[in-house]
């Protein structure tokens, strides 16, 4: 697309630093997702952090760099997958005789409170949400970032005839 200001990134130094930071941001995001049921945070917050990591990469290293790491098709696929994880987990409850949609089917009364493996389905739901939020927000960003800034030539029906 035409006239896009920063498809090329911000230069060597910024790009290198961004690449160093990438790992930290991802680890931090994943930990926010996983510990969402114990501390402030959760799937959405962690997903946002992860998406920010990829966005940083794209802004610093340019469109190509970001796409090489996480392409649009992948992002869309992961987004749908995250939603499907959520929906499947929700439907598990209905499979049981006295169960209900979205029921927390894994027993929660085991005294594992305050540890990572507690909360039944909640951490799993968090993972699904983290996955979909990270991919969908990154997808939105790349889509909006690559729209050309130059107006089209005046041509009455645009490109749609």
């Amino acid at each position, binding site marked *: 697309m035409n006239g896009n200001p920063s498809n090329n990134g911000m230069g060597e130094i910024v790009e290198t630093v961004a690449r160093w930071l990438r790992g930290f941001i991802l680890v931090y995001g994943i930990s926010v997702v996983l510990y969402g049921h114990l501390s402030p945070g959760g799937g959405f917050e962690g997903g946002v952090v992860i998406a920010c990591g990829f966005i940083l990469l794209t802004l610093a290293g340019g469109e190509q760099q970001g796409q090489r790491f996480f392409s649009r098709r992948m992002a869309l696929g992961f987004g749908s997958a995250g939603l499907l994880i959520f929906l499947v987990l929700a439907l598990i409850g209905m499979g049981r005789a006295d169960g209900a949609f979205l029921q927390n089917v894994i027993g929660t009364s085991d005294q594992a409170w305050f540890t990572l493996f507690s909360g039944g389905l909640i951490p799993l739901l968090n993972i699904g949400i983290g996955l979909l939020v990270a991919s969908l927000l990154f997808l939105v*960003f790349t889509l909006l970032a690559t729209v050309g800034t130059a107006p089209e030539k005046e041509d009455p029906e645009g490109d749609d*005839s």
Partner: protein
Amino acid sequence: MIEVIAILILLAIAAAIIVVETTNLLFSVISVGAVGFLLAIIFLLLGAPDVAIVQIGVEVISLVILVRATMGRDVEPAVGRRDFVGMVVAVTLVVAIGLFGMQIFADFPEFGSSVMERVAQAPSNTYLREGLASTGTPNTVTAVLLDYRAYDTLGEVTVLFCAVMGVLAILRRKARVPLGGDDATEDRK
């Protein structure tokens, strides 16, 4: 405490006035960010760290999107208002709703008296009392979001998905094919 919060809200209102009044689009975007970050601090003070984190994260993402959308495009200052009659109608409307709305807060419960104290059978009481025992989650907000009211969360992520599908649909390069043309199978780029 309440004074600090009031001052912060007043600051946010000042930033909001800049948002709607300034003629520079970039200033406007940055001021929205200011409103958002001030709100994040207020949420933190009001005992809502979860919301504050989300607010900051979302604010960052929206700012990136908004700056990206305005950069290189705001060729002209965003001056211009509706015509005079429109202005008068708009201001009257806003003032009327404002005056009417302010009235109702006279009958509102005192600030700081949460519904949980007034309504014994309010669901929030149950969430706090039994949240850990019945969901195994010490973070009650997560317990509400992902267990008690997980259906809302399903709806919420669906709205996000829906918006992304919408963005994909709206930003298609080629939206129509002439009749008799081959079926459209392209996946944007």
